């Protein structure tokens, strides 16, 4: 019964789901969805892209789950799935320009919709839109309150690399700010 499982950890649910427990799977996905979506958005830069990525992940998750061994936290594992799906999506979305364009469209729409916030978001667009994919992925995960080690685990790089990337991001942001002053 789901009710009984309210306090079951994600990893236990994931392992149960892997063994065919549909209720555990549903509960796990319901728990994770909004957060999953947030990450999708940060990775893709547009609402529509984020929704689509989310859909792709939901469709494939049951099959992917068979590869979850419980060696890492479920969230870490899930994020790895998301980041890889985002990579695939970007790569196949004909060109890399597409991803950057997502941020551009997003900016256009957003400024129209909420003018008063235009300035701040313009900054966000510039700040994120100009980052390389690696840096953007890293930022998207760090923004999720993951520590550098966990981010490294998701991305398959060392903690040191994540820290170095974040320092690059900070440099980037600093330069951006200075150029604006």
């Amino acid at each position, binding site marked *: 019964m789901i009710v009984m499982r309210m306090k079951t950890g994600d990893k236990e649910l994931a392992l149960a789901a892997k063994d065919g427990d549909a209720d555990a799977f549903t509960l796990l996905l*319901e728990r994770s969805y909004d957060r999953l979506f947030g990450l999708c958005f940060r990775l893709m830069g547009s609402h529509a892209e984020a929704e689509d990525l989310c859909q792709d992940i939901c469709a494939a998750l049951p099959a992917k789950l068979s590869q979850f061994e419980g060696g890492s936290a479920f969230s870490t594992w899930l994020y790895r799935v998301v980041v890889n799906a985002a990579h695939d999506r970007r790569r196949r979305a004909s060109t890399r320009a597409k991803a950057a364009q997502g941020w551009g469209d997003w900016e256009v729409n*957003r400024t129209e919709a909420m003018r008063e916030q235009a300035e701040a978001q313009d900054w966000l667009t510039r700040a994120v839109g100009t980052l390389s994919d690696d840096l953007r992925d890293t930022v998207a995960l760090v923004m999720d309150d993951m520590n550098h080690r966990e981010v490294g685990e998701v991305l398959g790089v060392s903690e040191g690399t994540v820290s170095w990337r974040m320092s690059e991001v900070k440099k980037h942001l600093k330069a951006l700010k200075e150029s604006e002053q």
Partner: protein
Amino acid sequence: MSDDLDDLKAAFSVATPAPDAKRRVENVALAQENFARLQGSPAEARPMKDAPSMGVFAKGIRAMFDAISSKAGLTATTALAAFGLVMVLPVLREGPPKVFTPQPAVLIEAPVLEELIATEPEADMAVGAIASEMAPSPVPAPRMSAKSQSRTRVAPGAGLIADAPVVAVEADTEAFASVPKNTLKVTRETPVSTFSVDVDTASYSIVRSSLMNGQLPPAAAVRIEEMVNYFPYDYAAPSEGAFATSLAMMTTPWNESTQLLRIALQGKMPEVEARPPLNLVFLIDTSGSMNQPDKLPLLKQSLRLMLGQLRAEDQVAIVAYAGSAGQVLEPTAARERDTILGALDNLAAGGGTNGQAGLQQAYALAKQMQDEGEVSRVLLATDGDFNVGLSNPEALKDYIADKRDSGMFLSVLGFGHGNLDDVTMQALAQNGNGQASYIDSLPEAQKVLVDQLTGAFFPIASDVKVQVEFNPATVAEYRLIGYETRALAREDFNNDKVDAGDIGAGHQVTALYEVTLVGNETQVDALRYGESSADGSTDELGFLKLRFKEPGAQDSQLIKRAIPTTLEPDTELEFAAAVSGFGELLRGSVRLGNWSYKEAITAASNARGEDSFGYRAEAIQLMRLAASLK
């Protein structure tokens, strides 16, 4: 973290939109379904069944919104956009899980997800019920709410929608080809009216489906010419040539001072026995959104019906596309019914969409199957969730047009209700020289695929254009009813390079003009300093010209005929007029005065004629429904 990073984080949390509540529910359902399938257990009924079957996976359209809308595209993608495709290829299906190998077990536990949810700042941005429940709360609470949310999702009702503009977005994922309604023309100023024929009937089916669901259709979904052309009319068959014209005129039901002029074409019906072998490639959308009773299952039944109409030497192949595209059935002679039916039965829905790969594969198959003198068709069956991976609509049009020129036509069968991308269907079929049909029931499948099989697949004339020059001596004003999406420039008529609609064997095309004869009250005042009198015969209303090409021909032929003033009404025109008025009512037209559904019902009932298939009786039912929903 540095201040800069904090700034970035704050900006992100403001910018991150709430997940679309409806898609959330659908995506979870999709995952559950795939989960169930993976366990080898029969898929359970989707929990969304009794919710309105709105579109879910309208990716193409969503992406389109983002690419083209100048306003509110992100926060509320509610605008109805009228063109375009942006293609995004789906993921994951074929992607090898290169990083999915489990990590060594030395890793230390990361925080479990639900704790993260509780501290998730962007939850503040979420809307409606989900937001208020998911927002900051102690650890156990989100679990609770996650569940209660899943319990209540069967009725995504007022509470959610009232607070959540984003939820309402799905209602708009049906995009309709719509341009301003044809307006009145003064003969003296604009004597010539030019349009391309249209034998599509999708709009009528959309209207019917909407009314049957107890809702008036959106005005933009109503294309009057497609409604009028839905019905078979009793026109005389041509004694020679590709088609005959049929003219008639009656007093406009809703305006005594104007006349309705009918210009109809009746295509010749070649002997069915003599038709060339037919190669059909079914390109079937098996993405997750097709898994509803009125989609894939109906499609299977429809194709089963159609199979009975094929001849032994016809060939059928099936390509399915979802996350990836694949040939499901190699070219198979129609006589091998069991093989074909078996392949059909094995189709199952699940995953994303990869329309481009499917389209390319289908065309490749069609090419492979084509022998000299044979007719090849690609039949795309989809619920509109069609992500064609070509980079822009023009490229897509060119691609399909290119295939069209090599003799392979594309027809589109639309299924389901909610995220049907009418614009895309129209664009695809028009550029592929095929028909766009919308199939909402088995009887409709019967009509489209069986009764009209011959016409749909055997064009007898292509690029058929109609041009009417009205005589200012007899006609003061005129208005073409419908055909808004089919208007052509006057000079396009003689330009054989300009593409226009095709007419298949036995097809009929009906066009209605509302004309004001000279001497009647006109809507536009005559010019004081205009030409004093019109030259020309007063026993002609105008002059009708038709241009068409024989199938495969480069140069067009011309048919000319004067339109006499002495035309009589007939039952067929009376019925067409009633349907036309019905369409105007649905569009909220202001031209009808006091003429209402009541009058439409009376007029249509009096003009039912033989109606051997009951189409007209059904239309009268729909008028009644619309009257009660008004």
